[in-house]
């Protein structure tokens, strides 16, 4: 038996794991960027550059240094959030990422919240009323939902709501961003709906199976034997128990949505983080690729960190355990 750890020890341990994961991510990122074709210096130069120009560019990018030196300065720069400037636009990578996040973060979070609002009640109904036609119907629709690619759902939604009904714009984002608030909000309506439906379909399956586990559990039977009504037993004991597995899934889904925004942003021509990455890949703009990947990884790891803490807060049984993910 391990002695129960204090919250502080747990936090420190979990934080150490977070830092370690970031270091691993930095190694992966470093290796990946070295695998990209050609010397990063080439991207700075046109065709027909002289040897001297190439050497100068290599010094500027640092690709003439030994790998270990490169790695140390790479990690040092990341730790100071010094992400450099774009090869193409010469703009600060961090500044550009900030602009792009003002589209992607609201898109992700609003889509995610709407998805929870859809999936939670429907998933519970699908489990509790599995023997009714609508319970089965919900399950079938969610089966359909996980087989639909995001971009096709987006195209269908554009066709229906933007082209046939003319209710919303089919794509784009106001140049002034959130300063033209109304326009920006309207521009995000269909993308948010698309994101929400996709997450809801997969989330619903987890909610349904978590609810099924709760319904079949001994503690619900005991509670009912002691005289609780079904709904009361479900609310008093089921919610907390069912929430634990669902929260870790929520963390993963949030991260996946954030990273998967690239497709939705392409369908609706939104200037988000995903379209920045796509453009950077096409233009071989390495500082932008690296910056987007680093910030994305950081956010994904932070989401995982938050989900773990929340899970522990809800389930006291986890508090005695080591915090390894």
């Amino acid at each position: 038996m391990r002695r129960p750890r204090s919250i502080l020890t747990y936090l420190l341990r979990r934080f150490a794991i977070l830092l370690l994961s970031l270091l691993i991510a930095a190694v992966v990122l470093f290796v990946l960027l070295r695998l990209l074709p050609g010397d990063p210096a080439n991207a700075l130069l046109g065709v027909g550059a002289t040897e001297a120009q190439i050497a100068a560019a290599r010094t500027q990018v640092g690709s003439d240094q030994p790998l270990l030196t490169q790695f140390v300065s790479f990690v040092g720069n990341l730790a100071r959030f010094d992400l450099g400037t774009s090869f193409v636009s010469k703009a600060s990578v961090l500044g550009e990422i900030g602009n792009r996040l003002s589209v992607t973060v609201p898109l992700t979070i609003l889509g995610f919240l709407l998805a929870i609002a859809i999936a939670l009640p429907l998933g519970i109904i699908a489990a509790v009323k599995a023997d009714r036609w609508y319970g089965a119907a919900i399950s079938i629709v969610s089966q359909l939902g996980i087989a639909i690619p995001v971009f096709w759902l987006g195209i269908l939604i554009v066709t229906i709501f933007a082209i046939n009904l003319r209710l919303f714009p089919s794509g784009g984002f106001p140049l002034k961003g959130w300063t033209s608030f109304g326009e920006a909000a309207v521009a995000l309506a269909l993308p948010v709906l698309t994101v929400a439906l996709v997450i809801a379909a997969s989330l619903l399956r987890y909610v349904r199976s978590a609810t099924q586990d709760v319904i079949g559990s001994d503690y619900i039977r005991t509670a009912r034997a002691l005289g609780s009504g079904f709904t009361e037993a479900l609310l008093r004991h089921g919610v907390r128990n069912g929430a634990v597995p669902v929260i870790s899934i929520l963390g993963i889904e949030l991260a996946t949505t954030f990273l998967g925004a690239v497709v939705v942003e392409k369908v609706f021509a939104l200037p988000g983080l995903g379209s920045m990455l796509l453009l950077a890949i096409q233009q071989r703009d390495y500082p932008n690729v690296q910056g987007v990947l680093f910030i994305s990884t950081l956010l994904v790891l932070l989401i995982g960190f938050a989900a773990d803490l929340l899970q522990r807060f809800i389930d006291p049984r986890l508090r005695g355990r080591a915090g390894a993910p």
Partner: protein
Amino acid sequence: MRAVAASAPRSRGSATLWLGLLLVGLHVAVALLTLVWTPYDPTALTGGRLAPPSWEHWAGTDRLGRDFFTQIMIGSRIALIVGISAVAIGGLIGVTLGVLAAFATRLLDDALAATLDILIAFPTLLIAMLVVAASDTASLGTAILALGIALSAIVARLTRILAKRVLLMDYITAARTSGTSRIGVVFQHVLPNIWPTLSVNFALQFGLAVIAEASLSYLGLGAPPPNASWGRLLQEAQGTVYTAPIGAIAPGIALVSLVIGVNLLADGLRDIGDPTRRASR
């Protein structure tokens, strides 16, 4: 409630399996057919541009006047090739890594597990995008390799967990004491035991690969023409959705029917392999 649920899904389970087999079989049949026959030459300009569906052109024609149904049929072949090859590559890399991690020292295993956890958080599509970026040219082979690598993280993670569970069993200790080598244990005990779960998972990965390939093609990072990927067909049709909505609908239906078919097949197989899951389905 539990008892009722346990008896009913038996028929649903086999219905799931049969519907899955039917859908997948249809795509396989179409894909094989395209090897010897298609209604039109896929590159021939056979009709008016963006013609609506008719007896001659079941799904109309595209913006150049090529028969759309022919291209969708060829899309089945591309999707099956991509799905099978990507899962084969991902399975080979993933199972190898997973088994190695299960046998590795604690430190190495922890490091591998942490790396896999990070990779898992990234969608298959994103990893595949980066692999495509790392290669010089876009081709069908690149897309397959990229998807295979992306899937391998998911497979490795699952294999590691399953293999570790098997390695704890008494019969492994017995086999080791009686002189079976580590490699022998892997092939005689570990792989046969985890195979049923893995194979169901491979079916799901196939669906993931098909969707991810379509998305790659939609983003312009997939196989170039004349490979008629459903994703590229949809991307091209998006611009003309107002005049020819069928083009933005038909390839999507083909894609979804294949993915649902494989998912149902996986569900059906799991229900057969693991009777305890029947009650919870």
